[in-house]
């Protein structure tokens, strides 16, 4: 990874806005991520969290505003070009290839890094790709069903497979949209451990409603409400913020 000055944000959005048929899902959001951090993005259902992720990953084109990644303006880049720059993501709706095996799904994802020039030599070696795929599956705890069709996995495990696929692309920024959905508590604990180990080597942007996971992983939390940033701070600051309690946590 190229060294970046410590204070340069990894990712920065300026005035980012997205309207759907007049509805402003994201409105003038200024947001930045520090290299190596785990940032949690929380907020009420419909606050615009998934839309913001979609804009960052290039799945959606903004109505206004700019996005910079490692100092470079990526606003006009397509999603696949952003993947090639090191932005990987998983979404709430599972997008695995259902008839392919679990293992082949990860192998396919690992081959994405071909797009990243100097890694081509490594990726061209099929054995290296397969070893990497096996390592990643082990990391997320999905070794048991590796040779089964991905569509036969329980819902929660398909989502875990998506995390494995994102990791196989060796990302610099990993954006995860509610990765613990459908997972049992022991699986959540495993995923939490994995993300904590990854932090520092890569930057993680985590949309998550499971507050135990948020509080355990994130050093900073950003709260969205009605398309805007309502609050940002340390987990204790966010937990005790009366506005956040009112619109999101529901605590007295």
């Amino acid at each position, binding site marked *: 990874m190229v060294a970046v000055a410590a204070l340069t944000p990894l990712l920065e959005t300026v005035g980012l806005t997205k309207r*759907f048929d007049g509805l402003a899902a994201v409105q003038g959001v200024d947001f930045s991520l520090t290299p190596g951090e785990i940032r949690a993005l929380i907020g009420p259902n*419909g606050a615009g969290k998934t839309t913001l992720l979609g804009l960052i990953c290039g799945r959606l084109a903004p109505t206004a505003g700019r996005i910079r990644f490692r100092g470079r303006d990526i606003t006009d880049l397509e999603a696949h070009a952003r993947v090639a720059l090191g932005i990987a993501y998983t979404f*709430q709706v599972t997008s695995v290839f259902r008839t392919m095996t679990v293992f082949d799904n990860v192998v396919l994802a690992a081959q994405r890094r071909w797009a990243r020039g100097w890694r081509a030599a490594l990726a061209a070696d099929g054995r290296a790709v397969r070893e990497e795929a096996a390592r990643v599956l082990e990391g997320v705890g999905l070794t048991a069903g590796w040779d089964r069709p991905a569509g036969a996995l329980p819902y*929660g495990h398909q989502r875990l497979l998506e995390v494995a696929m994102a990791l196989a692309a060796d990302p610099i920024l990993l954006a995860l949209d509610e990765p613990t959905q*459908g997972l049992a*508590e022991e699986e959540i604990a495993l995923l939490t451990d994995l993300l904590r180990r990854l932090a520092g080597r890569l930057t993680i942007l985590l949309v998550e409603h499971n507050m135990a996971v948020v509080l355990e992983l994130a050093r900073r939390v950003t709260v969205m409400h009605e398309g805007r940033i309502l609050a940002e701070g340390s987990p204790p600051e966010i937990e005790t913020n009366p506005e956040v309690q009112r619109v999101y946590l*529901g605590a007295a």
Partner: protein
Amino acid sequence: MLTVEGLTCAYGQARVVHQVSFHVAPGEVLALLGRNGAGKTTTLRAIMGLLRPVAGRVRLDGVELTGLPPHAVPRLGLGYVPQGRRLFPALTVEENLRMGLLVRDGRAADLEPLFALFPVLRERLRQRAATLSGGEQQMVATARALAARPRILLLDEPTEGLMPLLAARLLETLAALRAQGVGVLLVEQRIEAALRMADRVAVLETGRLAWQGSPAALRADEGLLLRLLGVRRAPGRPGGRAPEGPGAPRSAR
């Protein structure tokens, strides 16, 4: 009363549910727990007629459901909130909710309590379901099932994707439905929330019914919790802090 007897289901050669029997009485919550892949969702799908069992029977108040076409089952009073929000994406929120009303000839006024539960849905009535956020879709799926005024309600991880405030409110609603005599079959991975809600617990392990009993008995048996559910510490703490809220009434009914 929903009665499941000797239910056995297979995908091709793979048996995923073996000889499972349980019942859900009016006004009680049965939590169906188990690891991912234990057969919980398959059991619910088989009860709803979405999957034809290899063997076994499903009855509602003595009426045989096994073999009925899937559309006939909700009409008899069985409601289902599937995992992963199966909505009609091209239809608006209002149209999706009307589909729920149609099942048992409900009136528009029957939607009012559902808007009290999920106020944001009233603002989204004209929006196509596909354009909703994930959590909003979960609300529509739940509201649609409730609009059919089910006598027995099957829920597959209904708090998934809901913000803490709404997850707590949904659990309060389930407690209120139970008080009105609705039977609830709850599949939930948030063990602590499920144990707080449930009157009884059934645990599946690789397709077999491994244990049935009271939430208190399961809580008290750490070995059982670890073996059947992989929960090491007191339930609720590792990753699945239960949503705050009253959940089940504290006293016995």
